[in-house]
């Protein structure tokens, strides 16, 4: 007698839960930044995500339906007349079929993945007629320092880039490693001390984009957020010129103070000390030690600092670097 109300309650709960889950998948209050790319890299990654998801779903969804069907069909109920074969435990043909289905799907997916892996390798420069903007990124405890070597300016916790121009990020860390992520422009890359990683991105639309540190780096890691302002070429040039005119310079001592653990508001500097980024990258390299990540290290020299700059352009051969003063 009380079977019916129970079944109704169960049905209502199931429908409510499923509705809730569907709502959470398509809930539009938050921004699905990964699915709202504003540049070619983010766009390609979005396409790849959709492609790989649909490939995998092609396999999963029928199996899901089959699961529900089999469980319902072969439930042990008095009125269930389904066939019962307790000793049927082997069928080579069937097994061959379902060994080959995942093999084929994974094979296709593997080819797609390999292609995209080479295509989207973050250290690969982007094809463009424009000359790329270089930004040197340093993750600190718990803030981001961005240096523009060609413009000779620096910012903390904010990035400005011109629209439609490739950006070459060179990334390192002067603190525990972090990960530099601007979802709408493209995927993340780690920042690690002793190395200069490279990431090429481009923004095709003006706007303000969310960026953050993605890898846990200690107490206030959660506050390592920054805004990325994408502007027209003209606005960008004005912004640079303004900083050059109005802001204070970043000195070596200023950097050392900045590098101390603590939080920081967005900030701007009108100049950067010669070769600071190279110094940060090679700060911890012992004289004579070879670097494990050779090839990720070429850094762009600071404008007008030809001496120290050109010397380091050869990249990771740091064996003759003078390390005094920082160890």
């Amino acid at each position: 007698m009380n079977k019916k109300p129970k079944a109704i309650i169960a049905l209502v709960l199931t429908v409510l839960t499923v509705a809730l889950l569907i709502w959470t998948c398509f809930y539009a209050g938050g921004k699905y930044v990964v699915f709202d790319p504003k540049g070619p890299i983010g766009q390609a990654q979005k396409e790849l995500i959709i492609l790989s998801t649909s490939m995998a779903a092609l396999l999963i969804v029928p199996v899901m339906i089959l699961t529900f069907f089999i469980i319902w069909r072969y439930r042990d109920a008095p009125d269930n007349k389904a066939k019962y074969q307790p000793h049927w435990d082997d069928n080579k043909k069937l097994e061959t079929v379902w060994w080959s289905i995942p093999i084929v799907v994974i094979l296709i997916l593997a080819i797609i993945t390999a292609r995209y892996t080479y295509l989207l390798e973050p250290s690969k420069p982007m094809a463009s007629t424009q000359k790329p903007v270089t930004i040197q990124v340093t993750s600190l405890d718990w803030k981001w320092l961005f240096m523009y070597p060609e413009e000779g300016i620096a910012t903390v916790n904010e990035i400005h880039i011109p629209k439609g121009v490739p950006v070459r990020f060179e990334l390192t860390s002067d603190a525990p490693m972090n990960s530099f992520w601007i979802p709408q422009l493209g995927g993340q890359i780690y920042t690690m001390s002793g190395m200069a990683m490279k990431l090429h991105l481009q923004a095709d639309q003006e706007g303000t984009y969310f960026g953050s540190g993605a890898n846990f780096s200690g107490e206030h890691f959660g506050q390592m957020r920054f805004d990325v302002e994408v502007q027209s070429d003209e606005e960008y040039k004005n912004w640079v010129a303004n900083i050059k005119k109005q802001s204070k310079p970043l000195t070596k001592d200023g950097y050392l103070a900045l590098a101390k653990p603590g939080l920081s508001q967005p900030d701007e500097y009108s100049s950067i000390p010669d070769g600071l980024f190279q110094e940060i990258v090679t700060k911890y390299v012992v004289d004579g030690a070879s670097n494990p990540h050779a090839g990720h290290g070429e850094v762009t020299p600071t404008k007008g600092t030809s001496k120290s700059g050109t010397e380091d352009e050869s990249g990771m051969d740091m064996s003759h670097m003078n390390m005094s003063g920082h160890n």
Partner: protein
Amino acid sequence: MLDKIKEFASTFFVTGDPMIYGADVSIALAMIGIVFVLTYFKKWGWLWKNWLTTVDHKKVGIMYILAAILMLFRGGVDALLMRIQLATPDVTLLHPEHYNQIFTTHGTIMILFMAMPLMFGLFNIAVPLQIGARDVAFPFLNALSFWLFFMGAMLFNLSFVIGGSPDAGWLSYPPLSELQFSPGVGQNFYIWGIQISGIGSLATGINFIVTIIKMRAPGMTWMKMPVFTWSVFSSCVIIIFAFPILTVTLALLFLDRFGGGHFFTLDFGGNPMMYINLIWMWGHPEVYIVVLPAFGIYSEVISVFSKKKLFGYKSMVYAMFMIAILSFFTWAHHFFTMGSGADVNAFFAISTMVIAIPTGVKVFNWLFTMYRGKITFKTPMMWAIAFIPNFLIAGLTGVMLSVAPADFQFHNSYFLIAHFHSALIGGVVFGYLAGLYYWWPKMFGFTLPETPGKWAFWFWNIGFYVCFIPQYSLGLMGMTRRLSTYGWDTGWQPLNLVSTVGAFLMGIGFLFQVLQILLGIKNFRKLKDTTGDPWGGHTLEWSIPSPAPEYNFATIPQVEERDDWWAEKDKRAKGIFRKQSPIEAIHMPKNSAIPFIMSVFFFIAGFGFVFGWSFFYIPGLIGVAICMICRSFFSYDGDYYIPADEVKRTEAAIRGSV
């Protein structure tokens, strides 16, 4: 003098947080309570003789499971605290530092001190019984393994009230976990807690490999072995290759912190990347260590509760071994975003995807085990069924994550968190719960009541989806893992709130399970398993009474078929009875106090190393050495015989009550 003591006490004991004072009080009260109860009921001797010094695999298994449930509670409370903190923006329940400690201990406890011991508990309960053995190959070592795990776990948990918890993440990436950035003792607790229990895990792996190779009942060829035993075997193969890597990695980190080494530091040539490679060479196989036995349980449970033989037994076995081998070729997918270059990323992306093939095959085989069966929905089967759709989702998202260039967007985000919780809760925890319900009558002699179990099941399951599905979305909205708080401007609030509600639903599910056990104990006479075979089992453990007598099998069975017990029941129904061999005196291992005492010394040594106190670690190490010497020289008298008459009497008593 008084000032000095005060100063010491304030750094030694963690202070300043009401939650920690609460923990202090509850620990003290629990201790007093335990001591009082044991004294009042005069149970000290019973505790010592029956539990602390036992080498019986069934009792060791029960202790593992009890400890694991306790740790599930601790890890679960951590999880709920985190979810409260994240329910809405700008919550200040937990200071970031405290939050970091909580997610670190949550991860470490759930993987190493909950999943692993629960798994070892099930190994101990089921494997010797399934293969018709009287015990594991090395009963003394088995007890030692348990006590090492237990002391390691206690040492790790102690950090909450003494010295401070680790806060560098459950894998403790350097340089964050080095002295420079984590100067406190929390990280030392992490190293020694894991290190001590890790020795036990490695020994368990060896013990069960030898047990399975050498102790199978006559006639049980490899291809007649129960599939759960196969899964344990493949899991143990991974353990013996993976755990030494963990041991070495943590030893190097310890040398950095304690001995002024520079293996993983920033300066003097240290290389943090080395640690990250090493820890994942253990860490990814570890996932398969814990999931393979769950696959074994699903295979057993689905076949028993479909009243059908397991479909494609050989495929299942090969698939498990493929997974075991492939698990060692996946570690670099944990750092696709570290700039290893396209060659490395492409290789590890593909080697990761390949694991989906044997896993997918297993899902098909489970489905076709149910096909043309008669499915009964008892609690173990419900968990096994719930696993399939969930694991399909976890598998789908796993393949998505393995696509390297796409992973640049998923990595370190909540999408990843949702994926691995799906795999570890929906795959591992669901499986172990199914196994726990399944073997419960064999452990304790009564089945658990179904009604509260079903309530628990639905709360857990609905809670599980409500908690983790929103996290996939949050990941795609740019929310990263390990955030202690976030702003209103992010738009993450509603989904986080939903997720928190889901976590609490799972918590309610856990409470129902506690209730279920309590009701089971209260009504155990009514729920008594008098047949020894309450589910219509297929394998040997169901051929003996519940709970199993201390010698397991009065006579060692002669195995003729895969699913031997099922085949024998068939024959008995047709009136054909196997010839019983006569009961003889049974050779048994004696209890030993050495495993317990030695582990206590390990604990003392570990505690000494945590604080760098030589007056602790030197005596501790000496104690360990003395225990080893005692074991070598004075353990010749380590066995005894149960006379045949006594076995006959016991059997008659148990069977008589049938």
